[in-house]
């Protein structure tokens, strides 16, 4: 069944077509849901909400350019909305985050060697705000300005969340046995 045909039949509410769509993208949606949440239960709720939006939304939109992109976007939206509903606290500390030791290339080399499941595990332990900005900025490619509009926070809050997140990531990588260092001259 072509993608066009699949969309056409899903628009009509064809259950078999919905099943096909589900089989195609359920893994992707579940992964996105898990990336944004810290518990499997929450991820499953988001997963369900995302597919409800997909099956309801597909009947309402005129054209869908790429079905995968469209489902992907809905899954991200559902995840963000779920976190927004939970009133995410954006932890901001009053120290100068710019002076924190940044990630180094060495850290990144190790990060590059990790499997995506391991990276997801590292991110899942972070506070909601850090994880949200991490996903939106680093994975989805949104700018801080866009994130600010999406989450109704300031651009600088988005930046500071990312910096904190990178610090935590660095710590986690170091706990895994990778010790960062600074060059001392």
């Amino acid at each position, binding site marked *: 069944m072509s993608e066009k045909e699949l969309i056409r039949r899903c628009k009509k509410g064809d*259950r078999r077509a*919905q*099943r096909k769509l*589900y089989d195609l993208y*359920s*893994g*992707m*949606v*579940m*992964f996105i*849901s*898990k*990336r944004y949440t810290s518990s499997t239960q929450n*991820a*499953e709720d988001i*997963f*369900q909400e995302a*597919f*409800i*939006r997909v*099956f*309801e*939304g597909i009947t*309402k*939109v*005129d*054209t869908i350019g*790429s079905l*995968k*992109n469209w489902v*992907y*976007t809905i899954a*991200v*939206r559902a995840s963000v909305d779920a976190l927004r509903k939970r009133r995410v606290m954006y932890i901001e500390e009053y120290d100068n985050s710019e002076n924190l030791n*940044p*990630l*180094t*290339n060495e850290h*990144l080399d190790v*990060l590059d060697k*990790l*499997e*995506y*499941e391991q*990276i*997801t595990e590292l991110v899942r332990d972070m506070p909601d705000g850090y994880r949200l900005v*991490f*996903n939106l*900025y*680093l*994975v*989805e*490619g*949104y700018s801080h300005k*866009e994130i600010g*509009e*999406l989450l*109704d926070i300031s651009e600088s809050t988005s930046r500071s969340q990312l910096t904190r997140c*990178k610090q935590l990531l660095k710590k986690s990588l170091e706990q895994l046995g990778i010790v960062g260092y600074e060059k001392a*001259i």
Partner: protein
Amino acid sequence: MRKRSRIKLLGEIINQKFKGASAIPPVDGFAKIQNRLSVDAKLKTIVSGKLINGYEAPPIHAFAQIQQAIGAQPTVFQRYKVRAIATLLIIFLVSLLFIPTDYSRVDKGTYLSTTYKAPIDALQPNENQSALPDVETTKVDVNIIEDQPLEETLNLQLNSPVLDQVLNSNTNLVSPGTEGSKDLSLVVSGDLTDTENLEYEMKSPLLDVTGSTFESAQLKDYVLQDFALESNLVFPDANDSIITYFRKPNVYNFFFEFQAFANQTTIRTNAENWLTLTGNQGDLKQSLDFKVGGGISFPILKNIRMKTGVHYIRYSKNIEYLLYKNIPGSSLKFPSFYYLVGSRRENIVLNSLVGNLGIEVPVYRNHYIGIEYDLGKSLGSKSGNISNVGVYFGLAQFNFEGFTFILESHFNRSLNFNEAESFSFQNHTAGISLKIKK
């Protein structure tokens, strides 16, 4: 003056000294910035590369739960569907009260034992004619009968219990398709003093007199309501037969109609907007939706009537939704996304003027089914064409002061979408109409 010029001079000196001055930048400052930028870019590349196409096994039985959840969504449509069905059910049950109760008093034993015989000679068709008498034959008979100076007697007989007896008896008269006909005669033969053993037959050049059984209650509904007595009772041959001629007085019926309906609105987003209805729809106050108008109905074929008219329709729907605007993506890696604009409440109102065309056929007793089509223009801000198709049922009817009051249920579906600011919408309705027919 002097003090002022001194300050000015000081300013000029400082300005001159600082302008173009420089300080030594931090050692490896540029490299640090570059390094930081490169680390950020690398982090982004690694993370997005690894995480954008991940896969996790979905929960077991999730599909079934999602299907169930879709069915259980508290959408406007479903809520109104339940209400509409409940309303229709109540109205249908109430309408049963209006159905004539004579039917229940029919004596089946009498019906089965009734003997039918050929009509009296005056109405017998010739051998060359069809089984049914044609119009001319009937007219000739009327003339013959009217020549007889029996008017007073006829009037007396009309008021006699004989006709009532006939009409309250079980007869094999005509099928319920009498509305398409114009002339009708009721022939009663036998000893008029012996009402138990009367024989009778309904005849019409346009009706199938040998059709299905016809109950006395239906006879009253169809014949007495739709056919006026044209000539009195006559005695063509001594006093052993009665012929009563009926004529449908008004083949064309003018009607006025008011319909109240529940409106289910389908919202369709466009490429620029996305919206999701909030869970507060049940708390929003909805105003009355209605259709009002009038027209004319007339038979076009045996058993088929057509109606046409003009109606004003008002649709309205209060909705609350979250509006998202789309920002197009640049690539698969950066797909388009929607950002939340905010929560909005909107009252969609659509006023329209439509022409209506419908066809209806009888189904059982005085109940009928019809299909209709509305075509027109919307008025006011929500401009556009209106095109609705619908089906309707005659639920109950009764006569009062010379008018026929009819309750109908209507189910209509809009064939096109009308544009609102951030979306387009389509109306589907379920309603009850009261039609007053003359």
